[in-house]
């Protein structure tokens, strides 16, 4: 991983259920340009993470344990969760 410059943000990305199966991982770290939004994280994930191409273009996403829209801005240290269709109840 490259040295993190101030112009980047570092995110922890949590994966569950089918999305964990896609990648074989429950967590990945992402380093993105400052100013990135959730949609940028999704595009990065689909293009960079092995198996990530199976992620939908518009998945459900939570940031710091709250449901958010894809245009939500991200900050360094955010906990981003990619949420497969939920099946509780």
């Amino acid at each position, binding site marked *: 991983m490259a040295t993190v410059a101030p112009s980047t943000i570092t995110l922890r990305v949590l994966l569950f259920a089918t999305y964990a199966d896609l990648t074989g991982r429950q967590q990945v770290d992402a380093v993105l340009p400052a100013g990135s939004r959730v949609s940028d994280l999704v595009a990065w994930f689909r293009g960079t993470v092995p198996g990530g191409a199976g992620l939908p273009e518009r998945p459900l996403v939570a940031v710091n344990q709250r449901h958010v829209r894809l245009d939500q801005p991200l900050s360094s240290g955010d906990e981003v969760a990619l949420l*497969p269709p939920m099946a509780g109840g």
Partner: protein
Amino acid sequence: MDHPIDPALLAKAVLTARRGGVASFTGLVRNHQDGRSVLRLEYHAYSAMAEAECGAIVAEAERRWPVSVALQHRVGALVVGDIAIAVAAAGDHRDESFDACRWVVEQVKHRVPIWKREFYADGTEAWVDPTRLNNPLVPDPLEAGQRG
């Protein structure tokens, strides 16, 4: 939570002398899904967010209706017949009790990050995707409730 749910205790928890009615829902593990024979299942959760969303749903229900609400959802391994979810809503009258109970169950399905892995009689297993079952109108979790 990872221990069995007692719906009677849940109802008792929301009843006080002023309450005239308690509506409850108990969701069980059934032995079939989408035409397949189900033996057992596992609920997996994004635990911290699931607990926060359940708490938010209860609080929102108690703001929308004059009721007291209790909600529990299992995680981990369950077998057919086990209780997966229980909701109790106690109001002074029946209308708000029924309405709040139903609303809470629907909100859980749409907003709480819990996933279900089913194990079938033919030896296969799969994650359940409600958006691919006979349930085409699964709403956006951001639209499902009136967010605080």
